[in-house]
C-alpha cells in the first residue's frame, strides 16, 4: 500500500465508468434512504442487515450504518438462539473480510470486527490471528491491523513471547517495518522488565535489541525505522521525575521581596484541585495568593507568592520555611529550608546533581558501558558512511549522554555537519546546538543558580531552560541569533539583561519582570512602539538601550515610546 502508483484511465474508460457510477449512485441512495426510514421506525431486523450490507459492501466507511448494524445485532441477541447467533456473526465476519478487501484501512470495518468478536457466542480467536498474519503479509504497516492484532492478543491471551517472536519474523522479512519495531518496544518492558525502573527493560534483553538494530542500520543506514527504534532503546531507563523528592527545580525565599518563588518540574495550576501550602516556623501562612510569572493562575511551572499586608514573612529571627503542594488533597511535593537570622535571601536548588550533568538523563541511565559500546559501533559505521545523517545524529546524542563536557567540541562540530548534510532540518540542528550550549553552561554553574551568566557570541538561535534560572541576576545574550524572548519572564530575579545584536522583532515575553533595571536591546529588529509594550509592566526598569533598531529612525515614535516608559532612561542613538 505504500509508494504504489495509480494508473490513470483513458477518457473512454472514464465515460463508461461515469455512467456505471451514476447507476450505482441511484441504487446506493435508494438503499440508504430505506435504511434510514427503517431506523426511524425502529425496525432493527435482518432486512436492515441486508440493506446496510449492500451499501457497506460498496462503501465500508459509512460509520453510521455500522452502528445501526451493531444495534441490530444487539436486538437479535435478545431473541435468537445461540446457534443462530453464531451463524449470523460468522456471516458478518465473512462479510467484513470482503469489506476489508475493498478498504483494508476502514476504521468502521475493523471496529465492527472487534464488536462481533466480543459478542459472538463462540469466537474463534486463532482464526482471527491467522487473518491478521495474512493481512500483514499484504501490508505490513497497516496500523489498523496491528491494532486489531493487539485486541486479539489481549482477548485471547495469546502469549506475548509468541508475539515477540512474530515481530521478529516480520522484521527478518523486512526490517523497514516501523510497526513491527514499535510492537517490540511495547512488548519488551512487559516481557523483560527492569524492576528498578518503571518502563525499563532488562539489561540483557536490551543488549540483544541493540545488536539486532545494529544489524539493521549497518545493512541499510538510510532506513529510519532502525534509527527510531535505536533511539527508543537509548531512552530506556529514562527516569520519570520523582514527585516525592525532586519535583522542585528551585525554591527561594526573600525577606526583602517578601515572597517565595517555586520552580517546579511539572506544570500545575493553583486553584481548583491544586494548592500550595506555605508554613513558616511550623504555622501555616494564610492569606497567601499564588500567581505564575504572567500574573495569572494558568498552568505554569513557576509560582510566586503574594502576601496580603497583614501576612508577611517575619523580618527578623531564624525562619523555618516549609512548602507543600497538594493535588486533590494528596501531597505531591514537599520541601523545606531554614533562613538564619542574618540571611536576607536563601534559595535551594532542589535538584542537586552531585556533579553529574543535569541533562544527560534525557537519553538514558543505562550502564555507561552499553552507551560506550554503541558509540563505538556508530563511529565504526560513520567511518564507512561519513555522510549519514542518522549516524551523525545518533553519535551526537550518545556523546551528549556519555559526557557532554568531554565531547563538547565534537558535538558542536557534528551538529554543524548535520546542518549541512540535512538542510531541510537546519533549524532543528541549530536549536539543538543552542540547547546543548545552554545546558553545558548551566551544568558549569555547579548549582549556584543565583549568579550572572554570559552567553554572548554563541550563535544561539533559541534560549532554553529558563525554568531553571529564576534566580539569575544578570544575563548576557548579546551577539546571538535569538528572534524572540518568549518565556523570559521566568527569569524572576533578573536585573540586567543584555540582548544586544540579536534578531528580536518584539519584546513580548518580558512582562512582569519585577527586578529588571537595565535592558540592552541595541541593534535588533524592533520596528514599532507597540513591540516594546511588554516593558510597561516591568516596575523597576531604569535604563533601555534601543539604539540601532528601526523604531529609532522615526522621531515620532520616540515620543510615543517616551510616553509609554516614563521613568526610563532611553538611548535612541548610539553615542560614540
Amino acid at each position, binding site marked *: 500500500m505504500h509508494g504504489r502508483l495509480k494508473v490513470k484511465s483513458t477518457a473512454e474508460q472514464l465515460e463508461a465508468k461515469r455512467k456505471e457510477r451514476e447507476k450505482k449512485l441511484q441504487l446506493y441512495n435508494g438503499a440508504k434512504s430505506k435504511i434510514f426510514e427503517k431506523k426511524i421506525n425502529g425496525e432493527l431486523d435482518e432486512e436492515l442487515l441486508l440493506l446496510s450490507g449492500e451499501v457497506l459492501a460498496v462503501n465500508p466507511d459509512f460509520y453510521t450504518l455500522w452502528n445501526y448494524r451493531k444495534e441490530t445485532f444487539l436486538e437479535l441477541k435478545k431473541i435468537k438462539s445461540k446457534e443462530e447467533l453464531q451463524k449470523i456473526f460468522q456471516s458478518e465476519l465473512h462479510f467484513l473480510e470482503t469489506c476489508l478487501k475493498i478498504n483494508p484501512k476502514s476504521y468502521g470495518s475493523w471496529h465492527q470486527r472487534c464488536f462481533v468478536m466480543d459478542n459472538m457466542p463462540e469466537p474463534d480467536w486463532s482464526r482471527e490471528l491467522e487473518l491478521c498474519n495474512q493481512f500483514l503479509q499484504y501490508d505490513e504497516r497497516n496500523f489498523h491491523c496491528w491494532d486489531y492484532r493487539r485486541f486479539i492478543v489481549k482477548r485471547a491471551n495469546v502469549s506475548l513471547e509468541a508475539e515477540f517472536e512474530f515481530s521478529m519474523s516480520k*522484521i*527478518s*522479512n*523486512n*526490517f523497514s517495518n516501523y510497526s513491527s519495531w514499535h510492537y517490540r518496544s511495547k512488548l519488551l518492558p512487559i516481557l523483560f522488565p527492569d524492576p528498578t525502573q518503571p518502563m525499563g527493560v532488562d539489561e540483557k534483553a536490551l543488549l540483544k535489541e541493540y545488536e539486532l538494530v*545494529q*544489524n*539493521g542500520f*549497518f*545493512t*541499510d*543506514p538510510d532506513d529510519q525505522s532502525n534509527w527510531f527504534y535505536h533511539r527508543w532503546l537509548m531512552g530506556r531507563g529514562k527516569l520519570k521525575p520523582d514527585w516525592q523528592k525532586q519535583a522542585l527545580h528551585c525554591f527561594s525565599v526573600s525577606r526583602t521581596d517578601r515572597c517565595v518563588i517555586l520552580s517546579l518540574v511539572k506544570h500545575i495550576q493553583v486553584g481548583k484541585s491544586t494548592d500550595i501550602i506555605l508554613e513558616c516556623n511550623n504555622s501555616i501562612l494564610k492569606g497567601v495568593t499564588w500567581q505564575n510569572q504572567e500574573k495569572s493562575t494558568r498552568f505554569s511551572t513557576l509560582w510566586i507568592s503574594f502576601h496580603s499586608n497583614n501576612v508577611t514573612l517575619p523580618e527578623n529571627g531564624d525562619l523555618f520555611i516549609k512548602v507543600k503542594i497538594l493535588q486533590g488533597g494528596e501531597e505531591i511535593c514537599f520541601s523545606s529550608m531554614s533562613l538564619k537570622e542574618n540571611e536576607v535571601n536563601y534559595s535551594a536548588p532542589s535538584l542537586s546533581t552531585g556533579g553529574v550533568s543535569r541533562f544527560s538523563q534525557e537519553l538514558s541511565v543505562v550502564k555507561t558501558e552499553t552507551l560506550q559500546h554503541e558509540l563505538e*559501533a556508530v563511529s*565504526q*559505521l560513520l567511518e*564507512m*558512511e561519513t555522510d549519514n545523517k542518522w549516524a551523525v545524529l545518533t553519535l551526537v546524542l550518545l556523546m551528549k549522554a556519555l559526557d557532554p563536557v568531554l565531547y563538547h567540541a565534537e558535538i558542536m562540530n557534528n551538529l554543524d555537519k548535520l546542518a549541512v548534510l540535512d538542510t531541510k532540518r537546519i533549524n532543528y540542528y541549530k536549536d539543538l546546538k543552542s540547547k546543548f550550549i545552554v545546558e553545558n553552561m548551566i551544568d558549569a554553574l555547579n548549582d549556584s543558580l543565583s549568579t550572572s551568566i554570559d552567553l554572548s557570541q554563541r550563535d544561539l538561535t533559541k534560549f532554553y531552560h529558563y525554568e531553571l534560572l529564576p534566580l539569575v541576576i544578570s544575563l548576557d545574550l548579546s551577539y546571538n541569533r535569538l528572534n524572540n524572548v518568549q518565556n523570559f519572564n521566568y527569569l524572576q530575579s533578573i536585573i540586567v539583561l543584555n540582548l544586544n545584536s540579536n534578531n528580536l522583532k518584539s519584546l513580548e515575553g518580558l512582562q512582569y519582570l519585577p527586578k529588571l533595571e537595565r535592558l540592552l536591546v541595541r541593534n535588533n529588529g524592533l520596528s514599532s512602539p507597540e513591540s516594546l509594550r511588554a516593558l510597561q509592566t516591568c516596575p523597576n526598569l531604569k535604563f533601555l538601550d534601543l539604539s540601532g533598531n528601526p523604531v529609532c529612525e522615526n522621531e515620532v515614535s520616540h515620543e510615543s515610546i517616551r510616553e509609554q516608559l516614563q521613568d526610563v532612561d532611553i538611548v535612541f542613538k548610539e553615542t560614540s
Partner: protein
Amino acid sequence: MATEDLPSEFDIVILGTGLIETITAAAFSRIGLKILHLDRNDYYGGAYSNFNLDGIESWKQKNQDLQCVPDEESFAVSDDVKKLLQDQETIIPMSKERSSAFNITSQFHARQRTTIEEAEAKKTKCNLFTFLKTEASNTTASPSATANPVVKISDGQGDGDPQDSDAKQQSTSGSETQEQTVHVKQDSDVNSCTEQLQSSLVLTDAPQTASQDVGEKENTSGGGEREREERDDIHKRKAESSEEENNEQKQAQQSLEREKIIQVKEWTVGDIKDDWRKYCIDISPKFLYCSGDLVELLIQSDVARYCEFRTVSRVLTFLQGKLQQVPCSRADVFSSKIVSLVEKRLMMKFLQFAADYESSPQEYKDYEDQPFKDFLILKKLTPNVQHFVQHAIAMVTDKELTNVALKKTKKYLHSLGRYGNTAFLFPIYGTGELPQAFSRLSAVFGGIYCLTASATHIIADSSNKCCGIVTTNGQRISCRYVVAEESYLPSSYVQKNSARKISRAIFITDSSILSSENSELSLLHYVSQDDRNRPVTVMELPNSACVCPKDVFVVHLTRESGCDDPVEDLKEVRDKLFTTENKDEAEAKSKILWSMYFQQNDASTVTQTVSALPNVLVVPGGGSAGIDLDFTVSEAKKIFLTVCPDEDFLPKPPNPEDIIHVDDTEAAVERGPSEFQDKGDGDGSDKGEGNEEKNECLDNGKDNAEVKGNKTDGNST
C-alpha cells in the same frame, strides 16, 4: 495421428520442439503465419524435455542404441521421394537422429526390498486403492468423465517400458529377485492406476467409456485395468475374511510403524520405483532470472498463464568447509549470522553500487579489463564478502573480467525481490514445461503440431531456395521457411563453434544437502578445487517443485566437462556433499538413492554455415552449461526477425475486455485471437506474478500437463 492428413502448404515448417523452436513457433503463429511444427520424438521439448523415472531410463536406452548411428548418416533419397519433385527442383537429405547424450550410466544405491517388506508395501497400496476406488465410483457421473481420451505426452513412451527397465534392473540381482520382478511390475501398474485415480478421474475412466476408440497403447492400460479389477476382487475377499486376522494384521502394522518412527527411513529400490510416475527429471534443468528476458517474455506474451513457478528459496555456497546460506537480499544480509556488522555494510554498499554501476564509472572504469576477483580485493571487501559476491551472486570464475561480472551481478540484483527472496524461478514440474507452454500458445493461434514425425528431405527450387520438405511419411509439404534444431539438419549446414561438452549428474536423494525446517529449493554454485575455472552448478529440487514424491529430492549437477568421464568430473562435489552409504555410518550427509551420469555436446552456440540454403534457419541445440535460459529469447527473436523483420515479437494478446465481437466472415479472419480468448478465459487470470506460491499437488499438475498436451494435439486434427 497420421501425417497424410496434413495440409500440403504452410508458411513455415519448424523441426524440433526445444525451447527456442517453440518460442519461435509461438511468435510466428501469433502474427497469423501458418506453422507446421514437427518433432521426431514422441514427447515435447527435445533437449529441454523431462521424464519420469522410467522415461529417463528409456531415454538412456535410446541414446545408447543411437550411439552406433554414424554422425554423418542421413536419409536415403529413394525413388518415392524423387517422384515428389517438380521441374528443376533438387533434394537435400536431412540427418538421421543421433544420440544427444553419451557415457550414460545410472544405478540405484538402495537395497532391494525383503519379501516381508514387499508384502507390506503391497498391502498398504491395496488399502489406498480401495479407498480411492470408492471415491471414484462416487464421482463417475461427473461430466468430465466423457472428455477426450487420454493422449500422453511426456509419459506416452513410458507405458510399455516399465517391464523393460525393471527386468533389466532385476536380472542383475540374482535369483531371489525373480519373484520380486513380478511384484515390482504389478505394483507399478497398480500404482499407475491409483495414481491416475488420484490425479483425475478422467484419465482412468476413459478406457472404460471410450475403449473402442483407443488404439494400441490403451490396450496395454486396459490390461492394467483388468488387473486392477482382479486385485480389487482379491481385496474384497480379504475384507470379508475374519476380523481376528484383521486385528493381527493391524497389530503387526502398528509395531512396524513404531519401528519406522524410531529408525531413520531406509529406502529400498521398491520404495523409489513405486513412485516412478511422480518424477519429472529434466535433461536440461534451468532457472529463470526473475527479471530476465524469458520471464519478461512469458509475461508479455501471456504464456505465463500456462505455467506455474516456484522461487528458488535459497542460494548456498561452500565456505570454510561447510555449506552456508548466502545472504543475497537486504533481508538476508540483515539477519545473516555469518557476516559481521562491518561486512554487512561493505556488502550492501558494494551491491548498491553494482545494481547501478554504470552511473558511477569512476568506480570501475580503470579495472574493466581486469579480473573481477582483483577488483573485489581492490574494493576492500573482506574475503567472506568477496566469496559471496564472486561465487554466489555474480557466479563467475577467477578469470572473469570486471565488466562481464558486473553485468551479471547487476542482472542478479535486479531480479531480487520481484517474486521472492532470491533472483531465480523454477517452473514446477520442471524446465520441460516451458516448451510445452509456448507450443500451447502457438497451437491456440492455429499452429499444427505433430509428434513422432519429422522431415527426411528439404526440397530446393531452381533458385536454390528451400520450397518445401518431405515428411517421414513421404508427404511433400511446401513452405517458405524451414526452421530446424541443428540435429535435424545436414551436418554441412551446421557450424560447430564449440568443442565444449558438459557433464551432468542427476541424483535422487533422501534429504537436503543442508537440512532446514522448510522445503527449500536450493542453488549451489560450487567451486571445484580440481579446476576452479569449471564450477559445478548444483540444483536441489524438493517435492514442492513437483518433480519428485515426498521425502526425496532431485539434485541436478552440471559442469563443463574436463574429461570423458562425467563421474570423474563430478566426483569431488559428490563426495563433499553426498554419500551412498547408509545414514548411521556417514554423519548427516544427504544419501544418494539413485544416480545417473551422462555427457552432452554443447550445441547451444552453433551457427549456420554458408552452404545452408538461405531460408533454412538453424536453431542452436541443448547442452549449455549456463544456469538460465535467457539466451533462448534472443535466439528465437533473431530467427523471428530474419523472417518477419517488421513484425512484433510475441506482443501481448488482446485483453478479453478490449475485444470487439465481429460477424462470421470477419471472425474467420480473426480466428486466432477469438479462439485464444476462449481458452484464456478458462485459465483465469494467472500471470507470472504470485504463481510460484500456488500449492497444487503433483498429481493435479501432471494432469494439467497432459490436458495441455491434449489441446495442442487436438488442434492438429
